[in-house]
């Protein structure tokens, strides 16, 4: 499940919850479309409610990062834990995203 919430004029928080896998890929695709017109300085992905994430969903995340960075928008990850942290750590996502 993906929820977005504007924290202030400069930051959009994207909260991901449950298991992010093939069942949610349509949502990720819609989200990717949504960020094309974003006018914020930072997009922060909040993983506090995320239990698992599959490789294809991580692919979307990398694609989103690429898109955001190309338009000067910072991509941050926050509250990563458990199995999700293990997956991201193995793939050195801490070197790709700001972890806050």
């Amino acid at each position: 499940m993906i929820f977005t919430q504007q924290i202030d004029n400069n930051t959009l928080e994207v909260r991901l919850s449950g298991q992010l896998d093939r069942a949610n890929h349509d949502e990720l695709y819609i989200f990717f479309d949504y960020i094309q017109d974003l006018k914020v300085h930072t997009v922060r992905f909040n993983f506090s409610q995320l239990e698992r994430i599959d490789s294809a969903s991580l692919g979307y995340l990398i694609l989103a990062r690429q898109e955001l960075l190309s338009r000067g928008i910072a991509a941050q990850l926050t509250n990563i834990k458990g199995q999700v942290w293990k997956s991201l750590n193995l793939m050195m996502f801490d070197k790709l995203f700001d972890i806050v």
Partner: protein
Amino acid sequence: MSLSLQEHHPLPSLKKHRFAAAANAKTIPDNARILVVDDDKLYQHFLSLTLRKAGAKHLFIAETGVEALTLARLHRPHLIILDINMPEMDGFECCAQLRKDPLFLHTPILVQTATQDEDNRAHMFNLGASDFVRKPINPSELIARSCVHIEHTMLLEHTQASVRFLQKDLLIAKEMQLSLLPSAHKVADLSTQHQIAVSNCFKNSHDLGGDIWDIHTIDAHRCMLYHCDFSAHGIASAINIFRFHTIMLELVKTIQSPKEMLEHLNAIYFETLPVDQFTKLFVAVIDTQHNTLTYSAAGSTRPVYTRFNTSKSLLLNTRSFPLGIVADASYTEHSVDFSQGDSLLLYSDALMSHSWQRQDFEDDNSICQFVNYHFENARSKNLPASSAHTSLFQSFQHTIEHHEQPLHDDVNIIVLTRNSDI
């Protein structure tokens, strides 16, 4: 009971509606097949004329419910226009019978009725009617409703045909994916040559995942093993797997360093793959002369490495960028002892993310403990490493092969043990 046509559902004047309906009217697609079920000759004529004027080319007329079932099976109509009051089998029974047949589960049934009774209508809906058209029938309304239902049916048919086409293609791609895996004969030859027991269990994802592995002889004392997992699924995954397999067949002839191999592949994939289709890869060279296992990883799952003489299993370090995300990524080459009895387990991440009927593996630590249990058990009973290898592999194999639900990702297990008993 036979109803008087004039009393209960008088025919509308065709002349009155002929031109009124023409201006913005929808037309029935040329290839639409419509079955009209009505015992009243006059109504048959009226419905036929109305539908033909709207473009219908394939009309079939049944006078009874029984005849309707026969004609429906013969012509597979896109729409059935059904009367209620008929001899032999009335519209209620006919509707119920049609819905019992899987062929007509989604075929729209447009019921023509003069009744105002809401309970009767509800009953028809419960029996499977899709819609109603009230008698006396307004031709424009009949055409409009018919067109909507026919369009839906044709859309559904088109979607179902596309799904069948994709399923057939996926099935072929799955078989091709399996054909790329090393054959039992190849693995047996390699096992004998290098005295390494290799066991593999591979099960495809229901929609085609991105796993592939292989093992190649480098020379008399060395062999190279790899396990690859593409992030994408479906057709993209199939294409990626085939390209990877082809590249690797050439690369193993010239590059024997896992680190060099990954850096070379990363350069290729950074240029050619979209970043969301990254690849996780583990490459190892086993040297039976120097008793070493040299490996590099690109964000792969952490293999379980077991020293048999101490029964100590541990997870190898694989922290690194997957292939295709970062230009000029550098990879580290690690080397560990790999002597007689030592073992390596490679596995897909789906082993942890999937819920198994027999046993769940919450994370890589639980897999490591599972491996350790088998080797510890063999050692405590003075059994050889081959015994631990077999029991470990059979446990995984049983878990995976006896799992009946479809898998959301490929699952691949490779157990590799240096074994002088082979």
